[in-house]
C-alpha cells in the first residue's frame, strides 16, 4: 500500500508563534505551483488557521491554540460534492484542481471546517495542499511543519497500519469528526481546546496549604495533592456538575459548561 501523509499537531506545544501560517503564505504567495495550486493572494486566506482558546478566569487560566489546515479527509465533503474538481491522491492528500475549479465558489461552503478559501482575483477556491509540490520534489514535510520551532507540528509518511499504532500510542484524536470523515490531520492534547478544567486553591489560617488531598466526586480522574501554592487543577472535564472533596470532606459543588476558577477554599 502507498505510504500515507499525516499531520499531527500537539495543541499543548503550540504558542501561536505563527511561523506555520507565515511559512505557508511564503510558499504560496507570488508562486504558482501548477498543477497543484495557483498562487495565494497577499492577504486574506488562512490555509493554516490558528484558533485561540482561553480557559478559566483570572488568575487561574490557561491558553492554547489549534492550528487548523485542511484536514485532508478520506471521506471529504468537497470531494463528494465536487468530484470533477477535487482529487484524493493515493497518499491521502486532497487537492483542488486550480483549473477545473474555476468559478466554483460553492465549494467554500462544502467544508465543515471552513478550510477552503475563495480567491476572488483568480476566481477559484483554494486550501492547504500539504505542500504536495514539495513532497513530490523530495521534501519530507510541508513548510508549516518545517518552520515549527516547538515541535508542535509533525509530519508522517507511513503506511496506514503503522499510523494507527502511532495514533493509539500518542492518544491522537481527530477534531470534530463525528461524521466519520477520517481526516489525515490529528491532534494531541485536544482536551486543552475542547474540554474544561476546574481549578482552585486551598487556604488555612491565611496561608496556602501544600499537600491537601483533593478529588472530584463523580469522575474517574485520580485525586490530587495540592502544590506549594495550595493549588489543584482537574482537567479534561465535560460540562456537568462536580463536587470538590478536600481532605475527605465535600467542600464545594459546581456546575460548569466552561472552565472554572473556583478561587480559594478555606479549610
Amino acid at each position, binding site marked *: 500500500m502507498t505510504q500515507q501523509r499525516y499531520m499531527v499537531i500537539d495543541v499543548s506545544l503550540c504558542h501561536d*508563534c505563527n511561523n506555520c501560517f507565515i511559512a505557508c503564505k511564503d510558499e504560496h504567495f507570488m508562486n504558482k505551483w501548477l498543477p497543484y495550486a495557483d498562487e495565494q493572494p497577499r492577504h486574506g486566506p488562512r490555509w493554516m488557521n490558528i484558533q485561540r482558546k482561553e480557559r478559566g478566569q483570572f488568575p487561574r487560566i490557561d491558553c492554547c491554540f489549534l492550528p487548523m489546515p485542511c484536514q485532508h479527509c478520506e471521506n471529504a465533503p468537497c470531494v463528494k460534492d465536487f468530484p470533477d474538481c477535487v482529487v484524493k491522491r493515493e497518499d491521502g492528500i486532497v487537492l483542488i484542481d486550480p483549473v477545473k475549479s474555476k468559478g466554483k465558489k460553492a465549494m467554500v461552503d462544502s467544508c465543515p471546517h471552513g478550510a477552503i478559501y475563495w480567491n476572488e482575483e483568480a476566481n477559484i477556491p483554494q486550501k492547504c495542499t500539504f505542500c504536495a509540490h514539495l513532497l513530490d520534489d523530495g521534501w519530507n514535510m510541508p513548510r508549516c511543519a518545517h518552520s515549527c520551532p*516547538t515541535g508542535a507540528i509533525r509530519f508522517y509518511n507511513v503506511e496506514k497500519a503503522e499510523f494507527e499504532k502511532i495514533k493509539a500510542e500518542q492518544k491522537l484524536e481527530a477534531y470534530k469528526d463525528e461524521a466519520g470523515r477520517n481526516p489525515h490531520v490529528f491532534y494531541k492534547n485536544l482536551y486543552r481546546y475542547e474540554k474544561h478544567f476546574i481549578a482552585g486553591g486551598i487556604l488555612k489560617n491565611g496561608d496556602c496549604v501544600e499537600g491537601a488531598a483533593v478529588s472530584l466526586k463523580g469522575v474517574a480522574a485520580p485525586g490530587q495533592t495540592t502544590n506549594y501554592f495550595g493549588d489543584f487543577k482537574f482537567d479534561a472535564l465535560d460540562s456537568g456538575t462536580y463536587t470538590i472533596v478536600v481532605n475527605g470532606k465535600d467542600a464545594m459543588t459546581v456546575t460548569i459548561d466552561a472552565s472554572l476558577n473556583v478561587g480559594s477554599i478555606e479549610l
Partner: protein
Amino acid sequence: MGKIVRKTNSTTGGPVYVDVDVDENKIVRVTPIDFTDDDAESWTIEAKGRKFSPPRKTTYTAYTAGYKAMVHSDRRLLYPLRRIGFDVNGDRNELKRGEPAAGGDPKYPGYERISWDEALTTVSSEMMRIKREFGPGAIIAEPSSHHLWGNVGYRHSTLFRFMNFAGITYADHNPDSWEGWHWGGIHSWGFTGGLGNPEQWDLYEDTLKNTDMIVFWSSDPETNNGIYAAYESTVRRRWLKELGVKMVFIDPYFNHSAVLYSDKWFSPQIGTDAALAASIAYVWITEGTYDKEYVKDKVFGFEEFKAYILGESDGVPKTPEWGESETKLPAHDIRALAREWAKNKTTLAAGGLGGWGGACRGSTGMEWARMMIALIALQGMGKPGVNMYSTTQGAPTDSDFYFPGYAEGGISGDCENSAAGIELVHRMFDGITSRPSPPNINTAAGNHIPRLRVPECIMDGHFGPWRGKGFVGASIEQQFHQYEYPAPGFPKMQMYYKYGGPHIGTMGETNRYARMYRTKNLPIVVSQSIWFEGEVPFADIILPACTNFERWDISEYGNCAGYIPGSFTQTNHRFISFQMKCIEPLGESKSDYEIFRLLAERLGIEGPYAEGKTDLDWVKQYFYATDLPKITTWEKFTEKGYVVVPYNDKRKKTPGMRWFYEGREMDTPKPGRFRPGDQVQQKGLQTQSGRIELLANSLLRFDPDDKERPPLTQYIPSWEGHHTERFKKYPLAVVSPHPRFSFHTMGDGKDGFMNDIKDHRVRVGDHDYWIIRINTKDAEKRGIKEGDLVKTYNDRGEVILAAQITERVPPGTCHSYESSAEYKPIGVPGESADIGGCVNILSPGRYLGKNASGMATEHFLVEIEKWEGGVH
C-alpha cells in the same frame, strides 16, 4: 517560473536559505537551514541521567519567514522623491510637512519622483552649505533603534563611517531595552559593559543540572527570543521543564512563555513589582531563609536594606499584607512564593537576557532592576543552580572563537560610539592600507543631541542639561556627566538626516515627533528609508535604500556582542552567515553603503570613506579580521553561504558569577570582562566595595538626596501608577512591551504578511488596526466587544485600536505592544487620533529621573471607550 537558485542570508529573526527566481529577480521562499553531514558536530550535555543535544537546524521567527512580502511590497520606495512644495532654493514650506499636497506620485502621495542625481546634489549641496554657513555638527543623523542585519551594513558600521568622515552629529541613542538596568542596576553591581546586565556564560548547563525552580519576572523569552535568536532557546526550556524544573511567571500579562511553561502566574498591579520583591525579602529576612554567609561577605548595605524592609527606617514593614495592598496579589501567594523560592535552588529570570526588556523600561524600571539584584543577592547569586539567568543565553558553544557582533563597529572602527576598541579595530585595520573612522564631533566632549529630546531640540532650539550620553558602557560614573544642546560653541541643527524606522511607534509621548517636523527651525529633512511608512512622509527628500537581501554582508546568528557580551551563546550552534545579494536592488533603490558612497563622492570624501572598495570587498576584509580563516576558506564560505563553528571540548566551562561566589579572580571570557582598572586585583565587582551594593556608593558620592534614585534599594511608587492624580482620570494601566511579530518596527506594516496575524492586527474596513488587550470585566463595563474599535486616550493623545477581550490581564490592566510601523493621523499630524497604532503616543515622554536620561514607555495610564468615529 524561471531558474531557481538557493542563496543564504540572515536577519534579526534568524539565518535563512533564500530560494530566488533569478530570471524574474524575485524571492521564491525563505526557510530555516537544515545542517548537512559535513557541518560541525553539536554539543551534548548530561544532566539528571539524560543527554541533551540540540536539533541540527536553525530556527526563525514569523517576521523573518514573511520577509518576501516586505521585500516585494508596494510600500517599497523605488526611486528618490521630493516633497511637493519643497523648493531648496526658494520656499521650503516646512509647516506643511506631513500633509500631502495634491498631485504627484499616486504611489507616494505628496511626493514627486526625482533623479538620483538631483537627490544627491540637493542633499550634498545642503550639507556643504550648512557646514560653511553654520559650522560643524549642524547636520544630525538619526537611525532607528533597529536596522537590517549584517555587520558591514549595520548602523554602527556603514553609517558611522560616513557620519564621522562627513562631520555629522549622531543623535545619541538611549538604551531603550536596558533602561532600568543601565540607570539603576549598574549602581548595584557595575556590569557597565553589559549595560547593567550580568554575565550569562555557561549558565544553561548549570541550571539544567542544579536548578529546581525558575522565577520568570517580566520575562517572555518566547516573545522576545532573547534578542535576535529566534526560537533557539525554546528546546532548552522544554528540557528544563521535562526535568521537572518548576516555573513561576510574574508579568502583568499571561505571556507566551507562560502559555507553554507556567505553573503559577502572578500579575502585580502595574508599577508595583518592586513592592512584591520587598515583601518577598521581608519573608526571607524575618524567617531567616536568606544566605547569611554570602550576604556578610559579598553584599554591601544589607543592614540598611534590612532596616528598610522591616520598616525600622520608615515605619512601614514590607509584610506580604503590605505587598498585597500595593500589588493586589494575595498575601498568602506572596508568602508561598517567597518560601518555595528560598527552599529550592532557584534561578531568577529577570527580563529577557539576565535583565533587558520588560519592567526595566517603565517608570519604576530602576528600582525594579535594583530590587531583582537584591533578591538574587540574598539567595547567593553564583552558587550552583542559583543565578540571574533568563534561559536565553548560556549555551556551551565556543566562546574562544572570535567573531564579533554588529555593535563592535564593523567598517567604522569607531571606538567611541561602538565597541570596536575591544578587539575588532585592531584586527580589521592595519592603519596603512585601511583605516578606521575616528569621530571628530561624536566624542564625549563633542556635540550631542539625545534621541528622546530631538523634538525639544528642534522646537526650542536648545535643551538641557541632561546627564549621561546614551549607552554608557565604560564606567559607572560616566552616566553622571552633564550635557547640553547645542554643546558649547556648536551650531543649532540645520539638517535632520533620518535613517530608517519610525520613532512615533517606539519613543515616548510621540506626538512630539510628528509636531517637530512642522517648523521653520528645521530647514531640511532627508529620509533614507526602504519603505514609505511611519514618519518618512514628513521628509523633504527621500532616498530609497534596499534591503539586506539586495546587497552583500556577513554576520553571526544572534550575535550583536558589544553591549550583550556573549550574545552568540543564545544560539544552539555558532552559525556565521555569508549574506548574499539574493536579488538585484528593486527599482532604483541602493544599498546604504552605496548611497553614502555617492554622497561621499560629492562631498569630496569618497577616498577615506570607501578606500576604493565595494561592500563585498569590505565583507572579505571583515572575514579575514575574524577567526573564520581558522575553520574555513573565503572560497568555501562564500560557496556554501555559512559555516557552523565546531564545538570546542577543550574550552574551560566558567558559569557566570561562580568566580564571585567562590571569591576567585574573574575567569569568565574576555569580552564580558570589566576593564581591570575598575576592579582590585581582578576580584570583586566594579562597585567601590567590590560587592553587590544594596546601598550604592556611587549614588552616595554623587547625589545622596536624589528621591527618584536614592542610594538605598527600595520601592518607590510609580509616577505613572495608581497613587497618582492621573489615575483618577485614566484608571486603566497599559503594559506595552517589545512586540512579538516585529522587531521594533521591522516586520510590522509594509503591507506584509504580519498584518494578517490574528494576534498582531485586526482588519476592520480597509485598515489593519493595532490590538489592545482588555480584561473581560473592564470591557463589559464599557460596552466593548471582541474586535470593536476603541479610542484609547489620555492627555498625551488618542490612538484607535482593535479590542481583544481576555483574561490574560487582570481587571485594571491592559496590554498593547509598542512599535507600530504605521502612523496614520486622521487629522492634523501630531494633534489628532492615530489609526496606525502608535500607542507610544500615549506613553510618558519624561526621563526616568532628573539624573537618569532613560525613557519610561513600558506602561502608561489611559481611559478607553468605544470608538464612534467610523471606520477609516
